[in-house]
């Protein structure tokens, strides 16, 4: 670049400097601060070299595992948002219902030894029960709570969704107790398989595989079936879709069913990873998964998958990579901080996400 060219670009910049307000200063400070923490922390950590290749690989694999769970949950958010323009605040809790119902089956199987004898069959049965439960509950919430708000604009639907979230949580607390219940922990799940020369726990491979299969099925449904096409049409333009003879009610029900099923799989995976269920467990992963959905571009199915994976990896690698390097004690406590910061940064600076630019233009 020549000096002349540089000068030319500099002049309008200077004149627009007068409109560079306090607000812009804060926003730029936020951007620069986050970048500095990320870069400075990474450099610091890598120079210190406290973590070896094995550890980084473990972080990465755990990130991919969590990311695929987030992706499953994010799919529910993104599809419902696409069709209804509603943040289904209760979606995390629908995941919790799946985990809870799976728990009762899993505990019974663990007690009878079935979980150790017929591993695949038992896991499939647990998943099936969880999927059935969370799909049912997703459909019920749609029918009883969300349908009356189909044509209401403004904050009312979101507030109702917050209410649904509380209602589900507290119902489960009342019916099944407030305590944390330990998920069964069969020995075979903690055994490792060798991947690229590193040992990876079977559980994590199982979770990733379950998520990949579910997402593949979902992708085929959304892209190839008639109902999936109708769904995409409705999320493109609900009115036009209705004019073309698509039964929007049916599509909405179908969307909730799909989202609920994905949340059921995610719930069981999440519960097996953390080995526990309790009534509040769906909240944090739910919010994070919403962040993942926005990150990928809300309304976009592949976006939700990518966003989930990205969030999982950042959250898993982040504390060690970014925070340890700048000398923060106990960085793992701040895992949620990284996820929420990512969520907020996305909402502020790129609300249309990676793959969702078309959607965002229509929104604005």
């Amino acid at each position, binding site marked *: 670049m020549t000096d002349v060219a540089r000068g030319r670009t500099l002049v309008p910049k200077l004149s627009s400097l007068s409109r560079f*307000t*306090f*607000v812009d200063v*804060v*926003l730029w400070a*936020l951007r620069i601060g986050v970048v500095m923490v990320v870069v400075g922390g990474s450099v610091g950590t890598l120079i210190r070299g406290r973590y070896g290749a094995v550890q980084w690989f473990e972080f990465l694999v755990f990130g991919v595992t969590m990311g695929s769970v987030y992706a499953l949950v994010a799919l529910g958010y993104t599809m419902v948002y696409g069709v209804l323009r*509603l*943040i289904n605040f209760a979606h995390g809790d629908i995941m919790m219902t799946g985990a809870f119902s799976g728990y*009762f089956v899993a505990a019974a199987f663990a007690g009878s030894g079935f979980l150790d004898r017929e591993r695949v069959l038992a896991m499939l049965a647990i998943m099936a029960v969880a999927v059935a439960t969370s799909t049912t509950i997703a459909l019920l919430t749609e029918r009883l*709570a969300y349908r*009356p*708000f189909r*044509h*209401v*604009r*403004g*904050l*009312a*639907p*979101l*507030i*109702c969704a*917050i*209410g*649904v*979230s*509380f*209602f*589900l*949580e*507290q*119902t489960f*607390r*009342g*019916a*099944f*107790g*407030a305590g944390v219940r330990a998920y069964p922990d069969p020995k075979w799940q903690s055994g490792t398989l060798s991947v690229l020369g590193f040992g990876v726990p079977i559980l994590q491979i199982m979770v990733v595989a379950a998520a990949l299969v579910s997402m593949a099925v979902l992708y085929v449904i959304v892209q190839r079936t008639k109902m999936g096409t109708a769904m995409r049409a409705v999320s493109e333009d609900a009115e036009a879709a209705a004019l073309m003879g698509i039964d929007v009610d049916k599509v909405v029900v179908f969307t909730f069913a799909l989202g609920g099923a994905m949340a059921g799989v995610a719930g069981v995976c999440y519960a097996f990873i953390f080995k526990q269920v309790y009534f509040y467990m769906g*909240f944090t992963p739910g*919010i994070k998964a*919403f*962040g993942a959905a*926005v990150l990928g571009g809300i309304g976009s199915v592949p976006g939700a998958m990518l966003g989930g994976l990205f969030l999982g990896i950042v959250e898993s690698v982040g504390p060690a990579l970014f925070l340890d390097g700048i000398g*923060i*004690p*106990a960085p793992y*406590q*701040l895992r*949620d*901080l990284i996820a*929420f*910061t990512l*969520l*907020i940064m996305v*909402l*502020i600076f790129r*609300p249309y996400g990676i793959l969702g630019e078309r959607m965002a233009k229509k929104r604005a």
Partner: protein
Amino acid sequence: MSAATVDLADRACHRERSPFRRALGVGLVLGVVAVYGATVGILPLMDARWVIVDVVSLGDAALIAIGLSAGAAVAARTTSSEFWRLAPPSLLAGGVAGALVALLTLAMQVLPLRRIFIALSPDLLKALNFGLGAPLGGAVLIVSGALLAVLGAALTRAPEGLRKPVIVGLAFVVIFGVFQELIQIMMPSGGAIDALRQSVYTWEGLTLGGALTIFLLASFGAFVWTEWLRGRARERVRRLSPAQRRRAKAARVFLFVLLLVLLPIVAGSYIGQVMMLVGLYILMGMGLNLEVGLAGLLDLGFVAFFAVGAYATAILTADSSHALASYTAIPSLSYWAAMPIAVLASVVVGVLFGIPVLGVRGDYLAVATMGLGEIVRVVVQSDMAAPLLGGAQGILQIPKPRIGGHELADPVQLFYLTLAASAVAAYFAWRLENSRLGRAWMAVRDDEDVAQALGINLVKVKLLAHGLGAAFAGLAGSIFAVMLTSVYPSSFQLLVSINVLALIIVGGMGSLPGVMVGATALVGLPELLREFGEFRFLFYGVALIVMMRVRPEGLWPSATRRRELRDEAGESALGEPEEAAALAMRRVSDLQD
């Protein structure tokens, strides 16, 4: 809860023609409500509280109410005026509701449900089927459900002179029975009042004779009121001149304040403590009301400002190693010096939180602010901030405020502090609502783009909403810190934000009296019914859903809001875009006058 459910049932059944199918729907819904209450554990808890000792528990009363409302729902939806036509569907509705409960008892006897549903205990079974075993207990449930429903239908159709007194009498018995502890504490021992107390209550609760007395007195009072006094009172109010009406209103406000001042003295420190908590939530409610109710900025990170107020007070005044005084040259401040600083700190944080989310709208804003609130909690809880803020243990030993040499240690005295703070805050909120700024907020709420196009400075207006809302929360947080004399992160969960949101929605968005009603209903009531405390969040969830569906303007809506919702935007909660835009235009033209 049941009234709202009845309404839902009504709507669901509206489409069907046949009265019997409609009755079946009503019965199913109410039966599900009863079974839900039992499974979730509300009914067992209610069963533990007597309305009339050894005769009727609160749980029984709830089941009776369900039976009665089955009939009432059927009656309300049937147009035919002859009672004999109403009776069979009511019988069906009550019977179906009873049958569902009977099915639950049967299932409890046959299946090992207890292993999964912890609330389904043998005690509950005994309470539900009267200890009568499978076939007989179920039959009793169905028959009594059916009969209660007929009674309910009859009551709904009864002339007002009969219906009102019965309902009022029953309500009084329930109130005097359920809150017997509080009422008994309020009655001083010795003298005539003590004799009165002993004639109605035992130490356990209401006696049968006492309940009858209360019922008769209350019914008689209601009868006299509806038959003779009401008409005359209305006549007199109608004849008042505007000046007299204004004076009457001022007198009512004065009486209300006087009642608030005197009640804790009469009722003791427990009531004082509850009222103080309600006062804190009213403070926060008024703050969030500015943000959500007036400016339409749904802020779910509101608790962060509460936390800032509390922590600022703590580090400025506490007698601990985390206080600023212990490691800097800043002297330890008195509460009165620290409170304004705490409020100011909240405003600063409110504005700082407001800036990045300026461009984020609607539901995205809700999630973004919630994320900010969670970040604050995570940071405060972590080891990173522990040297400054005490980590999970928090900061202890915050001194109580002093006036001269006198320490405000008693909850009642702190209540007066809260009351004074609330009064000042309410004055500000009231003036803001009717100010130029308040109308600008409302314009932004109705349509941001139109508001901006008409010359409202969005940045300024929104930041003022965040900052001023935060000030109220900071004040509440500051009082909260001295109330507990300690602060720790677990007091500042997202639940607090949701709690405040729920109370302004129940009371009525944008309405000051609504905030008070909402706080009393959602904070005071669960606090008085101690054992139901764990169900308060269930109650909030239901309240949010039901209010949004049935009465989006709240229990005590502001006059503007009511006008908008009823006359201009029709039935829908927040209207169509064109109407909203028109409304915003009108607001702005108001503003330019």
